[in-house]
């Protein structure tokens, strides 16, 4: 990315604590438009918390999070405006179980954005097709496999036309066989130029898809770099130890 580009997302010295535990101890990084960033690191290192702070699901103690110029750490934050820009996909899919796949995708644009039902429905069909779920429109989440549910969740998020997508360990709850179908969907999104932040344990995938890798441990970013160099030249002992265990 060109150095002069204004980043879509800018975190500066973000601190977050849950009770006595400081989960984030000064996290800073930038994500440019169209960039795919992967955050890796051991459990409890604050990876997921970073994502949850970005779309204001949890408030931060101090620091700054700018999403497209909008400060998230602001009491007067318009959460709706922020969440229109930021889509999020969860590890456990979290679909609405009482609605069909198609309805899951249609709900937020109709209820939240007050868009025309007919136009939304057309888009929802197209989105489900895009995530390769043609024919599953009328299925309830309980009738779909984990991988299928996760792709509905991705389509549901895309229906809001976000500028930034957050993926929180989206393949961690899936069977090894179904991981691939979800990763294919994410790769296509990335190739289309969607800005993505992935928290993931899929090192191979991070290496292949990521423009930049961040390694977090105990609430700080220990090391980062483009995948080509990061996975071979990581210097910090903590990074090395983690990579040795997982690769």
């Amino acid at each position, binding site marked *: 990315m060109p150095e002069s580009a204004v980043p879509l997302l800018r975190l500066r010295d973000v601190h977050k604590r849950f009770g006595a535990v400081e989960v984030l101890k000064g996290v800073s990084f930038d994500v440019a438009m169209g960039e795919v960033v992967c955050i890796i690191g051991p459990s409890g290192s604050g990876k997921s918390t970073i994502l949850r702070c970005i779309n204001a699901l949890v408030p931060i103690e101090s620091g700054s999070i700018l999403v497209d110029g909008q400060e998230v750490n602001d009491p007067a934050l318009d959460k*709706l405006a922020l969440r*229109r820009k930021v889509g999020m996909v969860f590890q456990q899919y979290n679909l*609405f179980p*009482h609605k069909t796949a198609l309805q899951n995708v249609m*709900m937020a644009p109709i*209820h939240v954005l007050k868009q025309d039902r007919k136009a939304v429905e057309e888009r929802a069909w197209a989105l489900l097709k895009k995530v390769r779920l043609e024919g599953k429109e009328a299925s309830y989440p309980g009738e779909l496999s984990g991988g299928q549910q996760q792709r509905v969740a991705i389509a549901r998020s895309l229906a809001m036309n976000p500028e930034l997508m957050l993926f929180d360990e989206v393949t961690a709850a899936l069977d090894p066989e179904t991981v691939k179908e979800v990763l294919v969907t994410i790769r296509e999104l990335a190739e289309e130029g969607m800005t993505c932040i992935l928290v993931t344990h899929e090192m191979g995938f991070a290496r292949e898809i990521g423009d930049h890798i961040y390694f977090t441990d105990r609430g700080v970013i220990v090391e980062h770099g483009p995948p080509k160099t990061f996975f071979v030249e990581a210097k910090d002992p903590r990074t090395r130890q983690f990579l040795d265990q997982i690769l």
Partner: protein
Amino acid sequence: MEAFYEWFRWLYEATGINLTIFYDAFDRNRMISGFWMTVRLCLLCIFFSIVIGVVGAWLQGSQLKWTRRAVHGFIALFRDTPPLVQIYFFYFGLGALLPRVDNAFGIPEPILTNVQWAVISLSLFAGAFNVEIFRSGIEAVPKATVEAAEALGYSRLRAYIHVVLPLAVRICLPALNNNIVNLVKTTTLAYAIAVPEMLYVTKQIWSDATNVPEMMVFLLLAYVFLVGCVVWVMARIERWLKVPGIGL
């Protein structure tokens, strides 16, 4: 139809089993109006008690301490006192304190009739239970599902209407059914403030025709029928709401 009615007259003459409500037009009309009064009481109280339950459960999740305390107070008052005492409290206690208004003939009348007091009182009684029933359903909705709605830009109220409540209702439906069945049976307490519902007209009829055992049996069967209808409707609703993958 006439032959059907006449059969009961024959039954009376032949066996002494006296069901005036079939062969005597006056008693029949009394019973029919009593039946519809009970049905009306049931429908109104079911409706209002569910509204109270839904709104109360929403307010119970409020950020404001005093709102939550007010809901707790309401539940304590109406769940922990006998419904008959509540009806008396409203009709004789509160009703007497309210000003009277002149009717079309210039005669002062209470603002609220005994039927209206019965509806208010029974709705609050069943509503207090419904608040707790809905709360149990709401608490069983996974927090992560609500979070997904939030991440999609839903406000707390919109998430409640479109995600939390539809799921909570499915979870708490069996408990809700129980309370509604109880409510239908509790409408007989309106008898105490002379609401002409089924028990009240039955008492009138047996006072006139001295056919207490027959009317008691009839009344019992009438409630079996009425509650049976309610249970059937609730089962239909349960089936209609059933969605694959939600444990019901």
